[in-house]
């Protein structure tokens, strides 16, 4: 029987390799290496935040946003400006809905074979190798479209599609297709297999098992993820506009380059309004889906 006196510190060191501890240590090492690199090798000046020069520029900038130095009335007070930029906000909103629709429809068409329990697990329709190929292909496409950031997609697409809402929607749609696809496949893999199993045991065909045993469980979660991505997309549509995709983002870039800071302020206001509106709408829709 082990007595207390025999517990030495050595018995504590016999722990097996822990990924968690290693990751923490690795992250700490990376953090130190990164900051050292930035401060010493890369001209990173962390004191820049505290220099008076910076604060002068910041307050100056905020002042310009508030309308100092603009000739005539500032954009925030001009109704025509509100109307003009309002149309851009409308475009931006449409772009976001189009983008998330592309992603959503695309995923709905492809996510089932991308789940391992459907491709070759217990819920597989057949043992044919086609499913294996399909699984890896679809997962590969998800990975590829996901890894490339939305903005880079936009830059590439602007090549052959004229700048506009469609280009932006396509870029965002592609990137989110990969993200949503992976999440949706994981929903299917993590779901409770018992209803589907029971249906199959009761003699249901593949399609029935899908419709009654899998979809009811999976669709609500899919919808939640869709809404969550929409919240992200609405914030990114502005960014994609920078590259020329239209909407608020393009105008934002133009206004900055012409130093029309009062217009920048107005555009920021529309941006925040859109983000808040979409967040609230998503909260309401989430409740609907319950």
């Amino acid at each position, binding site marked *: 029987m082990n007595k207390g006196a025999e517990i030495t510190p050595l018995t504590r060191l016999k722990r097996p390799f822990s990924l968690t501890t290693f990751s923490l240590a690795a992250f700490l090492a990376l953090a130190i290496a990164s900051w050292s690199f930035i401060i010493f090798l890369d*001209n990173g000046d962390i004191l820049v935040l505290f220099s008076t020069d910076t604060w002068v520029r910041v307050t100056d900038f905020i002042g310009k946003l508030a309308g100092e130095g603009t000739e005539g009335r500032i954009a925030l007070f001009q109704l025509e400006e509100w109307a003009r930029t309002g149309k851009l906000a409308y475009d931006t909103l449409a772009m976001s809905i189009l983008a998330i629709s592309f992603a959503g429809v695309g995923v709905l068409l492809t996510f089932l074979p991308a789940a391992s329990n459907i491709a070759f697990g217990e819920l597989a329709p057949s043992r044919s190798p086609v499913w294996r190929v399909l699984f890896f292909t679809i997962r590969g496409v998800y990975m590829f479209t996901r890894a490339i950031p939305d903005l*880079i997609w936009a830059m590439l697409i602007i090549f052959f599609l004229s700048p506009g809402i469609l280009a932006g929607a396509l870029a965002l749609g592609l990137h989110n297709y990969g993200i949503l696809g992976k999440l949706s496949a994981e929903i299917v893999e993590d779901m409770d297999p018992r209803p589907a199993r029971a249906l199959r045991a009761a003699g249901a065909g593949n399609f029935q098992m899908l419709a009654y045993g899998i979809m009811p469980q999976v669709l609500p979660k899919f919808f939640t993820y869709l809404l969550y991505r929409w919240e992200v997309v609405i914030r990114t549509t502005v960014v994609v506009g920078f590259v020329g995709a239209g909407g608020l983002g393009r105008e934002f870039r133009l206004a900055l380059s012409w130093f029309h800071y009062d217009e920048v302020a107005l555009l920021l206001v529309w941006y925040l309004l859109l983000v808040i509106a979409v967040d609230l709408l998503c909260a309401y829709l989430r409740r609907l889906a319950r």
Partner: protein
Amino acid sequence: MRRFFESKGFLSILLLAALAWSVSAVDWGRPLVHPGGVAPLLQFLAALLKLEVSPSFLKMALLASWQTTAYAVAGITLAIALGFPLGIIASGVLARSQWIRRPMILSTRFLLAIFRSVHELVWALLFVVAIGLSPMTAILALAIPYGGILGRIYAEIFNDVPAEPLRALRASGCSELKVFLYGRLPMALPDMLSYTFYRLECAIRAVIIMSFVGVGGLGYYILLSLNDLLYGQTWTLLLFLIVLILVVDMWSVTLRRRLVS
């Protein structure tokens, strides 16, 4: 009538209507495909066979990848420094007096929401104006929105911790602070770590995008190569990008699976 507005049928109608409207908003009149766009696209695709693999270029690509990683890690560390304390405050777990608690939670959550609402690239543009072009532009532009996101998620995690062990600690005579250190924090750590690593992966992608503002890193060189029409270089850089993200992604997924079990 009210039941209709809360039914799934209404939801489906809403979704279809939204889709139809968004499609109609596109200006289908203008030529969709850029007239001169097909040729460069084909050239771009063809360049996949002509990857730029000279040693000097590969060295540069590697350095750019490291730069991107460093900015992302530095940004995340700042985001943690920002999000952790704000998350504690926003969760209200240390507040004793009821009078202070509600306004404190509401105001902190509002602050975090403001940080979160603005996309990191927009922050980057604003920071360029404020402090010019420097690594700190990217790092700060990343730290603020990510700090807001981390703060909010941390607050939720702190609040979702199981109550019974906390009750037992209190019954042992602990103050709320000790309850937090010995109970809440250890129980919250796995989820916190998991989410923070996920954010690290997102951060790398975000830094790449910030190159558009002129900050160095992989994205910057991708942009340059596109402008110079050196598509062979673009592809090499894209491959570095994909590998970098995949490595972090796999590490993150494995770690998170280990943490949840």
